[in-house]
């Protein structure tokens, strides 16, 4: 029973093993970044950046078809350009970061859709938006693993300034000049992980792996470290279950993974010990006594 449902798909099929490895790499890299996104109240920034990388990937596609390197570089350049431009506008004008980011990512998204529809078919657009986790080749796997290793190293190096930048940015600015560097390095990590994620589960679903496990982890852990570990664990378990569901019931794998994440989020929201709905009700009873 366990063999048939859980182990056999991975033992027998190479594409399932590759898919699992790819998802584990994304979980390790993107989820810690997502944890900081929600702690900085930037959850929707992930979504905006995911749209922003589209024209870059599309231009890469236009030049050389569905190939890894040009689409990755294109996505990276487009994402960073939008991050830098909106950061620049925020610092130079009275427009707030969310508004300037929205303006640039919408422009970027429109350019992307225009390019894809001029040259490619709808199938290609679907590929970029929803990924092909069940068809990961060696090069893509190496890219995914490199990106997650790189982001873990950068996160470790910038951990303290990043925590300060989130919790008390004014203090960081008063004691060190690292504030701007920290902010842009963090945005670089967001873009990097989204670009990695879009090869596997698509730009839109990659945001899901970033944000959903982190929001769920908020109901289980009280420290940042605890949140990150919990979020990564949730993301990995969701990937495993999602891939199996997709295998057994012929579901598209990206949405299946995200929906399992969503289910765990719903359970955490209800039963999580840190501010979950049930925990809140029982806490009220304590006060009444």
């Amino acid at each position: 029973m366990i063999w048939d449902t859980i182990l056999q798909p991975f033992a027998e099929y190479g594409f399932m093993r590759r898919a699992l490895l790819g998802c584990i790499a994304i979980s390790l890299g993107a989820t810690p970044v997502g944890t900081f996104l929600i702690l900085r109240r930037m959850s929707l920034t992930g979504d905006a950046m995911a749209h922003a990388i589209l024209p870059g990937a599309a231009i890469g596609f236009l030049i050389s078809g569905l190939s890894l390197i040009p689409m990755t570089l294109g996505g990276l350049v487009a994402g960073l350009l939008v991050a830098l431009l909106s950061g620049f506008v925020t610092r130079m004008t009275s427009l707030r970061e969310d508004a300037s980011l929205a303006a640039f990512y919408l422009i970027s998204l429109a350019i992307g859709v225009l390019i894809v529809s001029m040259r490619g078919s709808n199938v290609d657009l679907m590929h970029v938006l929803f990924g092909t986790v069940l068809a990961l080749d060696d090069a893509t796997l190496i890219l995914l693993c490199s990106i997650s290793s790189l982001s873990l190293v950068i996160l470790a190096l910038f951990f303290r300034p990043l925590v300060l930048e989130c919790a008390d940015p004014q203090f960081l600015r008063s004691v060190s000049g690292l504030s701007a560097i920290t902010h842009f390095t963090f945005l670089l990590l967001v873009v990097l992980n989204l670009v990695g994620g879009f090869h596997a589960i698509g730009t839109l679903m990659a945001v899901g792996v970033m944000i959903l496990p982190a929001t769920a982890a908020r109901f289980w852990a009280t420290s940042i470290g605890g949140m990150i570990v919990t979020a990564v664990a949730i993301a990995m378990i969701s990937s495993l279950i999602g891939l199996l569901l997709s295998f057994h019931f012929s579901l598209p794998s990206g949405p299946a993974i995200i929906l399992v994440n969503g289910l765990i989020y719903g359970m955490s929201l209800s039963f999580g010990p840190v501010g979950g709905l049930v925990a809140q009700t029982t806490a009220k009873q304590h006060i009444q006594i």
Partner: protein
Amino acid sequence: MYALQFRKLSLGYDHQPAIHQLHAEITTGSLTAIVGPNGAGKSTLLKGVMGMLTPMEGSLAFGSLSRENIAYLPQQSDIDRSFPITVVEVVSMGLWKEIGPFGWLNKTNQVRVDKAIAAVGLTGFESRVIGSLSGGQMQRVLFARLLLQDAQLVLLDEPFNAIDTRTISDLINLIERWHGEGRTILAVLHNHETVQTHFPQTLMIARELVAHGPTKNVLTAENQFRARQMCEACTGPPHVCGKSAA
């Protein structure tokens, strides 16, 4: 010997000066209250000292100090209280200058952190997350962090806002201790009683300098009336000011 000198300093946002041609000198080791009506530019002045605003005209001079030697406590609203971080973690940030982004907290420094927490009366609260603290307790945490920053010039922006009297008197003790150690302290305050009792020097501003000197000479009814008038006359952009008064 001055710790800080404002030389015809103008600071502001979007071409509108919130501080206009301020000329004053803060003596090293002095304990000075900054007072003035709402919108007088008190917080702006502290931000200017911290280098968060570039002077529109004039300049700022630090005597023998450099910017690393300044500690700044902004108004409380700037800190994300929902962030999952504990009291001991926030207080330890005060050691940033020594340990930087990568250094470890060694035994000596851990003892210093514990002492700072004890000095503000929060022993036992070390592992509480800041979201579970009251406003007064949070302010004690921030004062403990200031203690560790060990700065020669301390800037406090409304440190006693919405805080009970017992906490205020504890924090004033700390401020007086710093003063005794020869540090220079500038605090934006609203309560004139606190200023009269504990702050020997006062700088009264209303976008421009109203008065500066020993507190009893500055906090006069006449000066306060003048400050209010100066501020009320200047609620819009400067060039509209004269017309709207007519």
